[in-house]
């Protein structure tokens, strides 16, 4: 009946061995057992006079070693399934969480071209990036909008700068119309530019032409990075070698379009009209003065005619197009954010979790009004301390009386401790809701006794008080049981001896009994503290807004705000705190000394 039994003698031994923990483990198991192969090994070692032989003639030392190895392997084979199971179902998820707390590939995988352009841009300067960056942004966002990935990026960047989400969603709707005038001019000039078969022939260089799949594999990589889906297999399209040399940008866009059409939309390339981005890229390349003189492949005449026509058209101004869509694109804060978060890994989430933020000038504290995580961490620590303290205060007398009563009575009383321990957590939490609420049992009794007026009932729930009371009740057994098992080992005669030597009651307790019970207090306190700083359910139900813990915030970020990176960073910090405590617990009590049942 000792669910959390910690052996005090073991604790002393641990201390004496001065951290030599392995010896303590073997000690416990071998002390009373028969001689082990190990002993024999040492004995055979100590005999200098020639090797002792086993029955089959091999040296005893060797055959013992073999037996030992077999034993070791058998033990490992028994442990291995569980170890693998735990590694996959538990350790890997924890690792995944740690990874997510720094992972930030979404910016560089969605804005592949823009990120490259932004490398040379100096955020400290007064200007927003120039036309080439906006052009790169156009290629990136057009594809992202087709693949419906731009909203994800918008949500991600919105955590850093509010308003980005709606900006991205807006541009996703409008980006098809960028360069509209020029595209329409091209299509009006020759309707062949709206013909999917013409495009297909132009891009693939016609039947039997020399092929070049370099752009195709680049496009495949681009799409895989963006969507994390596979784009492996035959696209039914390979760019022609000659046209690839001549119009690389157009080929690259067309290849992307082709792959997306085949694998994401599951259509046939030759039967689909290319995206506007493909036409825009062709217009861009034609107006930039590409030399078509030597080209003789399919569509050569149409290309030349188009180039002549486009010479009279104004060039496409991407920057202006973006600014027309939404003037927020001129906001240098937005560009700073994109540049700051373009590397694949970021410390941004961790900084945010401790109320700091990344800026161009380095790391600085967030404004006072927005500091929430520091307060939450402090509150979690403070309330866990209070809960631990009240558990010690309430648990110590109970453990004492259980340890000093006759065994039969103590066992009966222990049931009163174990019943809450075995009762469902939600039952206990709902019980406290029943007890503490304003129309609840405690308030009713107080009103009935006339101690408070009916209209001034105490507010005991949905605040820190409620959380502390309910959690003290829930965690009290975890404090009592280790204390009790330590106190059981303290002989009652010590107190009597102290008193017969003239100590007062208090001195006898404080100088003789209390120091011996400290290991129990330590074990119980660490256990209660570890459990309470990660508690979620009870604060969520009885904590209201002022009595919630950091874990409630983590849950909020996972299920409501969907800022998983921040949730992971907060979780990692909490995990680190718990692991330090776990390590301390292991040093003080020894994890293999925890016993249940």
């Amino acid at each position, binding site marked *: *009946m000792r669910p959390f039994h910690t052996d005090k003698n073991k604790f002393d031994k641990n201390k004496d061995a001065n951290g030599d923990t*392995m010896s303590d483990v*073997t000690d416990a*198991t*071998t002390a009373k057992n*028969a001689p082990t192969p*190990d002993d024999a090994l040492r004995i055979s070692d100590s005999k200098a006079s020639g090797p002792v032989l086993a029955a089959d003639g091999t040296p005893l030392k060797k055959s013992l070693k073999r037996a030992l190895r077999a*034993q*070791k392997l058998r*033990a*490992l*084979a*028994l*442990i291995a*399934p*569980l*170890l693998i199971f*735990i590694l996959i*179902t*538990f*350790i890997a*998820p*924890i690792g995944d*969480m740690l990874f*997510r707390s720094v992972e930030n590939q979404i910016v560089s995988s969605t804005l592949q071209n823009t990120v490259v352009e932004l490398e040379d841009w100096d955020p400290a300067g007064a200007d927003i990036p120039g036309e080439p960056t906006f052009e790169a942004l156009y290629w990136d966002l057009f594809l992202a909008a087709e693949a419906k990935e731009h909203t994800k990026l918008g949500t991600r960047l919105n955590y850093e700068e509010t308003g980005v989400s709606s900006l991205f969603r807006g541009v996703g709707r409008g980006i098809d119309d960028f360069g509209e005038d020029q595209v329409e001019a091209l299509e009006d000039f020759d309707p062949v530019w709206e013909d999917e078969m013409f495009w297909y022939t132009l891009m693939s260089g016609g039947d039997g032409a020399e092929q070049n799949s370099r752009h195709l594999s680049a496009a495949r990589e681009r799409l895989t990075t963006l969507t994390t889906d596979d784009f492996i297999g035959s696209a039914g399209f390979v760019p022609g070698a000659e046209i690839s040399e001549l119009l690389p940008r157009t080929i690259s866009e067309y290849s992307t379009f082709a792959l997306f059409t085949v694998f994401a939309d599951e259509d046939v390339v030759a039967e689909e009209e290319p995206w506007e981005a493909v036409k825009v890229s062709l217009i861009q390349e034609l107006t930039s003065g590409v030399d078509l003189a030597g080209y003789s492949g399919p569509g050569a005449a149409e290309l030349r005619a188009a180039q002549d026509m486009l010479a009279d058209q104004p060039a496409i101004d991407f920057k202006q197009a973006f600014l027309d869509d939404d003037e927020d694109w001129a906001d240098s804060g937005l560009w700073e954010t994109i540049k700051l978060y373009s590397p694949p890994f970021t410390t941004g989430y961790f900084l945010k979790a401790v109320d700091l933020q990344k800026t161009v000038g380095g790391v600085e504290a967030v404004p006072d009004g927005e500091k929430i995580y520091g307060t939450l961490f402090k509150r979690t620590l403070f309330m866990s301390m209070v809960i631990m303290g009240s558990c010690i205060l309430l648990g110590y007398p109970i453990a004492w*009386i259980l340890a000093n009563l006759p065994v039969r009575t103590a*066992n009966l009383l222990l049931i009163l401790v174990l*019943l*809450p321990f*075995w*009762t*469902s957590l*939600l*039952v206990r*939490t*709902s*019980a406290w*809701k*029943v*007890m503490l609420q304003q*129309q*609840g049992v405690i308030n*009713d009794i107080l009103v009935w006794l*006339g*101690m408070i007026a009916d209209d001034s009932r105490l507010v005991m729930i949905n605040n820190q008080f409620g959380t502390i009371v309910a959690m003290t009740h829930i965690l009290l*057994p975890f404090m009592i049981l280790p204390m009790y098992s330590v106190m059981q080992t303290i002989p009652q005669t010590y107190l009597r001896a102290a008193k017969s030597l003239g100590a007062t009651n208090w001195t006898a307790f404080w100088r003789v009994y209390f120091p011996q019970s400290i290991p129990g207090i330590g074990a119980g306190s660490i256990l209660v503290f*570890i459990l309470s700083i*990660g508690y*979620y*359910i009870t604060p969520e*139900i009885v904590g209201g807004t002022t009595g919630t813990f950091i*874990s409630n915030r*983590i849950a909020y970020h996972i299920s409501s705000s969907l800022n998983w990176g921040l949730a992971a960073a907060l979780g990692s910090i*909490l995990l680190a705190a*718990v692991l330090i405590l*776990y390590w301390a617990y292991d040093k003080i009590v020894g994890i293999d000394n*925890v*016993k*249940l*049942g």
Partner: protein
Amino acid sequence: MATYTLTHVEKKPLSFSVPVLAAAGAFAGLFIGTAQGSGPIGFVGGAVMLALLGLVCLTALSNDKEKIARWLILLGMAAAGYAFGALPGLVVGALFGWFFGWFIYWIGEGRYRANLVPYLTPGQVLWHYSFRVICGMIFFFLITPIVVVMPLSFNAENFFTFTPEMLRFDPAGYSLKHYRDFFNSPDWQQALWNSVTIAPVATLLSVTFGTLAAIGLSSEHVPFKRAIMAILISPMIVPLIISAAGMYFFYSRLGLQGTYWGVVLAHAALGIPFVIITVTATLVGFDRSLTRAAANMGANPVTTFFRVQMPLILPGVISGGLFAFITSFDEVVVVLFVGSAGQKTLPWQMFIGLREQISPTILAVATILVSLSILLLATVEVLRRRSERLRGMSPG
């Protein structure tokens, strides 16, 4: 203990007993007084009444008339209680009467010294009993919330508190309505079914893997024993919200999020530390020469395991299994994240109910669960005793 006693139970002088009784009476009277409208009157009245009662009992009605006197006090206070507050008043009054009847003689006859060592000073005696009262209050704190839930679950109204009808012991104030709700609502039945299908499978997984690993770990020659142990125990130490977050992220990558097997695997991982701890503890007392003896007589390792080792460590395995079962059955946080609506378990349904405070059906479920945990507690206790008997220890 011994056949002789050194304590001196002797009649106390009235100059001691009467003031003590008056103080107790004043304390009780204060509560009754405030409840009835006037504290000071209750305070004085209680003191006077108990002082008089004490005086009469300890002088005229002592020794052989004690039994009669105690019955008289009980009945008298019950009647007074009925006059003030009908049926509930009667019960409260009877309880007061029973207590004070006993208390008057306990103090007056000096019986409170009976079980104490004779050399204690009055101050130490006072401390001895105050300490017990304090402990009693802490036990009260531990057990009351669980006990209060039970009568409330028979509430005829949709309130989370005692209605006046319930306090009058009016049968109309009680009903099985919330139990009927529980058994008729498809939501709750689905939740019950999910709990019942998830927990045993998770328990089976943790017990199978956990027992094998515990046997491996109990061998003396395991390399990295401490590190392995730390990893295997970690699901118990890492806060549930972190486990839940990690599993949610990782299981969605694997496509296990929102599936039955995702929840089962997560719960199995959470239950494993309990199995490891209990089975390892049982194995410490296991005599390894028994397996050697079995091997010596020609049994292969599998036979040895099932015929010799397993029967001896079975109590540990079963109580580890019960721990794993209750962990899974009682778990909310992980299932909240790893599961989807299709895996809504009983605690999940309760959590929703508590957050939105819909109905006291939760209290009916709570009562059922408390009964279940009493059952589990009894089983574990029986197993523990059996295990200690098998290992040659005297059950404590």
